[in-house]
């Protein structure tokens, strides 16, 4: 299997506006979930979330470009800019027709659509901003990234609920392996904290609407779990073929390598838990087999962690059934408990954070996990961060429509 390398990472998220700031914030153990200003709790019982604050996009991009963007494009541009800088790719000399863009997103730029609708009904259709036509839909960040960096290679945006980010990374890796491009900027982005988007997620019934404090609301795998808390953010990485890394003598920049991936469907949205476990296990088994890694070498698991009892139980049971007694040999962490679930970007965040975990030999603990209750059987990282050498990690993701996916990512090796 042709290796695909991660040579750069970038994050704009609730814990910080660069990968380093985010990582330091996450490891501090602080919660980054708070009450959303301007959101009426009587209408939206889940008026909490992980917000991105204090961004300065005008430092890096022209006002002319930023004027055209919805918030999710702006967050993407910032994370991509950091990832390309981290990779050290010289965009003036790299063949831009050989770089692709792959973005995972679920809900688009609803705040732009929301504003456009207000104008439509208050002032009339002729006064709607023409930028709306190209900035509200999920593929908008792909276009704006292309405009900002002049990237012209094979590109795609994928939508598959919380699996979107992982699917984008898998497509990018496969496109590089197929030889269509030499490098890709890939990741996930979501800005679901607008009233309109919030309403859609609220109607799904999986959001946490009853909590002691915002900081203690999101409790994946804990006995007192009460549902998911949303967050906004973007997590991106630069992928390259071995030849691309060699050609620009960037071996020292390699952070990780993307192994293989598997995505499965329950076949029905209302599958029984047993069926879901079977399908989830199939995703794990197939991803590991395709990756040609020894299952014993995988020592870090990053599960989806919706904090809904049945969903968390499916994850715990699938991992226990797959590894049997060896499941306790692996560390299991779920960093999103500290900052919220970024839906279409969630699995991209997990992928980037697992790379940082492997690079720094540090595993962030799961906020609010005090008592696993029915979710026993996995070696959760609790109460404090752990130092551990990890060479291989497994990223897991699930979503509406019965979709589930698994990906193996290995630590540096070039």
């Amino acid at each position, binding site marked *: 299997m042709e290796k695909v390398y991660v040579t750069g990472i970038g994050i704009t998220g609730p814990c910080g506006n660069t990968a380093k700031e985010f990582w330091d914030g996450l490891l501090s153990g602080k919660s980054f979930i708070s009450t959303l200003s301007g959101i009426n709790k009587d209408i939206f019982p889940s008026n909490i979330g992980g917000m991105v604050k204090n961004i300065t996009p005008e430092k890096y991009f022209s*006002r*002319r470009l*930023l*004027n055209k963007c919805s918030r999710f494009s702006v967050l993407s541009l910032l994370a991509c800019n950091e990832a390309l800088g981290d990779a050290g790719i010289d965009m003036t000399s790299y063949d831009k027709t050989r770089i692709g863009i792959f973005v995972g997103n679920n809900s688009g730029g609803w705040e732009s659509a929301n504003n456009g609708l207000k104008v439509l009904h208050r002032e009339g259709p*002729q006064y709607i*901003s*023409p930028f709306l036509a*190209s900035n509200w839909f999920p593929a908008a960040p792909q276009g704006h990234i292309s405009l900002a960096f002049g990237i012209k290679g094979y590109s795609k945006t994928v939508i598959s609920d919380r699996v979107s980010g992982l699917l984008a990374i898998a497509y990018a890796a496969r496109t590089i392996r197929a030889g269509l491009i030499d490098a890709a900027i890939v990741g996930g982005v979501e800005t679901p904290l607008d009233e309109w988007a919030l309403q859609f997620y609220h109607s799904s019934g999986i959001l946490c609407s009853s909590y002691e404090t915002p900081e203690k609301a999101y409790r994946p795998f804990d006995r007192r779990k009460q549902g998911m808390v949303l967050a906004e953010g973007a997590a991106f990485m630069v992928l390259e073929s071995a030849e691309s890394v060699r050609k620009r003598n960037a071996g020292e920049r390699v952070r990780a390598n993307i192994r293989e991936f598997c995505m499965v469907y329950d076949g029905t949205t209302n599958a029984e838990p047993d069926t879901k476990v079977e399908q989830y296990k199939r995703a794990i088994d197939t991803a590991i087999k395709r990756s040609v890694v020894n299952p014993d070498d995988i020592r870090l698991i990053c599960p989806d962690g919706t904090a809904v009892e049945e969903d968390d139980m499916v994850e715990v049971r699938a991992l226990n059934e797959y590894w049997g007694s060896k499941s306790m040999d692996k560390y299991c962490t779920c960093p999103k408990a500290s900052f919220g679930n970024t839906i279409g970007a969630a699995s991209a965040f997990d992928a980037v954070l697992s790379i940082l975990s492997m690079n720094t030999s540090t595993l962030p603990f799961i906020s609010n996990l005090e008592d696993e209750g029915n979710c026993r059987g996995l070696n959760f990282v609790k109460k404090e961060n752990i130092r551990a050498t990890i060479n291989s990690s497994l990223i897991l993701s699930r979503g509406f429509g019965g979709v589930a996916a698994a990906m193996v990512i290995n630590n540096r090796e070039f």
Partner: protein
Amino acid sequence: MIFERICEMIRSIGISDEVSPEIMLVNDLGMDSTELADLSTAIAKEFGVLIKSGDMKGYSVARIVEIIAKNKKGT
């Protein structure tokens, strides 16, 4: 007065080039189709004059000012 307002509208699109009456919207300022449409919308809102963005492609700022002066309400 109209000229100054057009300059402000162009600046609010994020274009920082100096604007003079003879400047061409596309050839000199490099405005793209969405930026032209944005300018068209702003002019319609403020002056009640609809200039189709497609027509603006070959216009200078002076031509825009002239059309507005000729067609705006109350004149």
